[in-house]
């Protein structure tokens, strides 16, 4: 039986409005959505639609002008103790790791957030080494951050946030500038993090990544969440729901299939699933190699 707390959303935005100082147009306007625990959410939207601002508000780095933000039903209060707890629960990985990494070396940077939790040095040390191992950073521990590649910096940025064991992880454009291999590593890292019980929300332009990875999709248009639903439902009506965002390549290919092949088939979320349906449509037995 489900306990009553389980039905309370993890994070909730209720008609949140935000405008940057000295500007006339609000970035977010009456923005409302709920986020359930355990989800893998992709927040999609055009440049300037307010994705990063929404993340800054969710992480309580900016203060909303209007509306309310709730964590498990509790209103966000902008008071020091409350903010400290809030920021420990919600980890934010910035788009540019260069802006997020603040210490001199990898180990120092990861330990920085841990000390901010007022943990004793022995525990900081234990959690630091565990994080270094989890993210395959042991060999880079003493390396200065400016000697790392972009992919390594991103891994350190993610590790620094995950060391704090947040309940919700927000990642702003995590796939940008990553090569194929780094993208695969990121996908694996996110899968591991999710399996450990962390809810993940990413803001991205990368529709192909979102299509294959997310189980929940939100679309942000002009500062409002216009779509928030299961990924399979959203992508079934994708061109109608988000006509300006383009389309994932697998979905494009899927729509090129004859209607008879697609009938009673779930949307293929991977290339392998698409090929299986294609082979089935052609009545060719799949290669069992």
């Amino acid at each position, binding site marked *: 039986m489900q306990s009553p707390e389980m039905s309370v959303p993890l994070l909730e935005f209720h008609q949140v409005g935000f405008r940057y100082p000295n500007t006339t147009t609000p970035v977010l306007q009456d923005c409302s959505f709920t986020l359930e625990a355990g989800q893998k959410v992709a927040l999609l939207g055009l440049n300037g639609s307010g994705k990063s601002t929404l993340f*800054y508000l969710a*992480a309580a*780095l900016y203060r909303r002008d209007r509306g309310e933000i709730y964590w498990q039903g509790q209103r966000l209060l902008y008071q020091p103790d409350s903010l*400290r707890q809030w*920021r*420990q629960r919600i*980890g*934010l990985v*910035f788009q*540019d790791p*260069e*802006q*997020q*990494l*603040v*210490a*001199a*070396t990898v*180990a*120092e*940077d990861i*330990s*920085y*957030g*841990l*000390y*901010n*939790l007022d943990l004793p*040095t022995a525990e*900081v*040390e234990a959690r*630091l080494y565990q994080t270094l191992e989890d993210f395959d950073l042991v060999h880079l*521990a*003493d*390396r*200065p*951050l*400016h*000697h790392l590649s972009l992919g390594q910096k991103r891994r350190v940025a993610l590790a*620094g*946030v995950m060391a*704090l064991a947040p309940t919700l992880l927000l990642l702003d454009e995590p796939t940008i500038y990553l090569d194929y291999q780094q993208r695969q590593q990121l996908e694996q890292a996110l899968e591991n993090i999710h399996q450990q019980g962390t809810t993940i929300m990413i803001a991205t332009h990368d529709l192909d990544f979102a299509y294959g990875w997310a189980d929940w999709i939100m679309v942000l248009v002009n500062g409002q969440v216009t779509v928030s639903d299961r990924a399979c439902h959203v992508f079934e009506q994708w061109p109608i729901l988000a006509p300006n965002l383009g389309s994932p390549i697998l979905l494009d290919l899927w729509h090129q299939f004859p209607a008879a092949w697609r009938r009673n088939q779930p949307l293929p979320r991977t290339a392998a699933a698409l090929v299986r349906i294609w082979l089935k449509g052609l009545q060719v037995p799949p290669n069992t190699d």
Partner: protein
Amino acid sequence: MHHHLDAYAYTNGLRHLHPEQKLIFATASLLFTFLARPLVQSLLWLWLSLWILGYARIPWRVYFTLLATVAAFWLVSLPGLVVQILPTETLRASGQVVLSDLSLMGWSLFVSAEKLHQGLALGLRTMVASTCLLLILLTTPFPSLLGVAERWRVPHFILDILMLMYRYIFTLLEIAFTLQLAQRARGGYQRRSRWFCSVSLLAAQLLRQSLYRYEQVNLALLSRGFQGQFRVLRPQSYAYSQRYGLEIVIGGGALILLNAIA
């Protein structure tokens, strides 16, 4: 490219030697330089060079290029130290040993033996003192020095500023380098007038980006729970060396003795 000097600090032969031991040796040598006689200073320079080139295995080209830069600054300031102007009569009355002079309209432009000696002594002292600093710069990573400074109870706010400066100086250099490349790709710096225009645009962009970065760093610090003090764990993988310790004691003792009797 601008990371090279910093990279030597992480890859040299003395990287595992405890930074405190290197820092004490370099600081003691620096202080001794101010007291030592020229012969002993020269011997100290040879000894420090042995540490840098021999033990740390820093390429001699790098080491001598850095020393040449120091020497160039000394050479540029040398005329100001050794060339003097006095009324010719005053100069004659003073009885100074003049190595070279040029008299015109009752004034003499001259180089005295005493000032030249002072200039050369200053040059030697500058080179030895710079070598002491190079020993630290080329063999010890900056974060390790911060670790030593923390143990020596240097105030935290100074360490925080130094760490952030070290972290972002390379980022700023990288941005400047990339912006300059972008400017060159579009024909910047080709004529003198365009050179000034390009430099001013570069400076403006750097300022703008620095301010933007400052805001972002501020957000990053807040998102990771910054509480006013920048505490980090500095894992130590260094060891004091008896062999180097013994060399410092014996070598230092010998130089002090030589300085006393020479």
